[in-house]
């Protein structure tokens, strides 16, 4: 069924540019060596790839928005052995890519609805891909809101995008930081506390939530209290992944495999999996 021919053996890509995002987070722009014009394979927003850092290993990473329009890039935080090795690489170095894998965001099913994005910290990375898609097809959706929380102003991701989104027509952005900091004149407080304050739409609304487990649970609680149904809360899950094709079983949650059935799930599905997030 699959037309992907890099299931087991990675394709080689060259790092064209490296951009510093925030502390410990960098964006790597890639060109695919073996494809015409270095263009990436066709991908859907919400999917992921397995990225090989030669000599270190392989890790799963979420994909950028419509790489046909923007250049193919991966935003990666330095956390473990392999991501550390990736951060050491320079422009011109090679990485390996397998994929894309996974299901992607259900844009067809949510046409015409209001959309609320709730992101915590680097949870914005996977959601940005969805935001960009929605922004490009704004006429197909209702109100679009973004709630973004970070520990400090320095940890706000994608500043250049945020600037653009703040002024974009039909797009409401609410940014908050955890504790007051001199020089910050925006909102202060955890991101879930903002939801009730801001009078968000509840009818015909879909919420995309992504962030650390603590924040995730608090946001879900608020959203369901406000009356947004569990089937209308969408999230993308993170798991330890090795193969990406549903064989190694490391990403199993209950009866589903995050790599082939996910990584995008509704909260209703997540609840029935019977495991921690």
């Amino acid at each position, binding site marked *: *069924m*699959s037309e992907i021919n890099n*299931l*087991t*053996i*990675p394709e*080689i890509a*060259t790092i064209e540019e490296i951009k510093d995002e925030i502390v410990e987070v960098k964006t790597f722009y890639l060109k695919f060596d073996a494809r015409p014009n270095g263009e990436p394979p066709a991908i859907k927003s919400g999917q992921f790839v397995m990225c*090989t850092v*030669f*000599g*270190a*290993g*392989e*890790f799963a990473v979420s994909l950028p928005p419509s790489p046909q329009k923007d250049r193919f890039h991966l935003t990666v935080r330095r*956390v*473990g*052995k*392999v*991501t550390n090795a990736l951060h050491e690489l320079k422009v*011109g*170095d*090679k990485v*390996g890519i397998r994929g894309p894998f996974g299901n992607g965001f259900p844009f067809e099913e949510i046409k015409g609805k209001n959309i609320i994005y709730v992101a915590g910290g680097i949870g914005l990375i996977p959601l940005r891909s969805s935001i960009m898609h929605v922004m490009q097809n704004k006429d197909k959706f209702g109100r679009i809101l973004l709630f973004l929380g970070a520990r400090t102003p320095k940890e706000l991701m994608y500043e250049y995008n945020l600037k653009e989104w703040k002024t974009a027509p039909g797009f409401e952005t609410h940014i908050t930081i955890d504790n007051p900091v001199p020089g910050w004149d925006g909102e202060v407080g955890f991101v879930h506390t903002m939801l009730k304050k801001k009078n968000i739409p509840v009818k015909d609304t879909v919420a995309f939530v992504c962030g650390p*487990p603590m924040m995730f649970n608090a946001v879900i609680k608020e959203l369901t209290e406000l009356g947004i149904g569990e089937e209308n809360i969408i999230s993308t899950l*993170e*798991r*330890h992944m*090795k*193969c990406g*094709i*549903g*064989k*190694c*079983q*490391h990403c*199993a*949650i*209950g*009866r589903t495999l995050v790599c*082939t059935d996910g990584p995008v799930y509704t909260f209703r599905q997540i609840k029935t999996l*019977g*495991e*921690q*997030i």
Partner: protein
Amino acid sequence: MYLIKKSQVSDIAKELQKEYQVYGPVVDKETKQTMFVKADDIAEIDLAAPIPAVPPKHTVFPHYERIMAYNYDPQSKKVDINPDFDDKPKALFGLRSCDLTGVICLDRFYLGQEFVDEVYKNHRKKMFIVTNTCNVPFKQCFCVCTDSGPSAREGYDLNLTDLGDQYLVEAGSDKGKALAEKLGLAKADDSYKKKKEEIVDESILKFDSIAKDNKAWVSRVVNRVTTGLIEEKTWEYIGNQCIECGACSFVCPSCSCFNIVDSCTSATAADRIRTWDSCSYEGYTRMAGGHNPRKPVEDRRSKRFFCKLSYSQSKKYLRPGCVGCGRCQWVCPGDIGLPNVVTYIRREIQK
């Protein structure tokens, strides 16, 4: 159906050796354990040997294998990737039906889902399977409960059944038939069909008197395991018994989890290694950064039994994930082999 004299049964293996690497049950002289290994000398293969201590799973899914070697040169920025799939022709001679069922489970899981596993496909490409009917069940097994024995019904090329002074040889594929014809085996008439049935029935009846703590009536617990209606304290008890050694996964003919690591062989070269992995290990689900959604051991332990007993997982194998070889019961230092877990769950249901 064909017949072959007991003294000549090794002719089949010798014929196979011309084309395949022949694997078979070999009794280790020192430890007296049966191992399913490559036999360069066919005389070493003992068809009457007890069930191998480790299943022949390693012939299709080695516990440690290189799937790719790569060389990267940081100076010239050149990367060479060399896939390394093992597609050597292998013949499994004297496989027990439970172990064959394990291979069938792996086939359906690795080849029959959305994606096909290239590494596994190459192992399975050229393979000849000769199974061996169990006239007497071994003391730890329970294939009667999991519908995987005592005689193989599908998936073999040749099946042997011990008739005393000779073996009944059934061909399960064109490949098997061709080999039997080539060896000029004597044809067996239809009366042997009945004879084989009697042997199988007798073997099933013997199970009841031989089996002690390994009567695992898996179908009774499938419902509970699938719906998750098992009390937390049952899993906690099972979790407390587990010492997280992973032995149950490694001796299981149908356990298919693996890990992938890149291991550097020199300053510029590395091998991508695929190894067996076990869901009982704490690091199995731990992500970079330390978050682990399955930290407590009972959370992890229940997953193995979910894999073996639940309906959702059975859909992938088209049969229960457990093949009834009894090895997990045999090796488990914590006394939580599959038959025992089934017993604990049934005890809970009866309360």
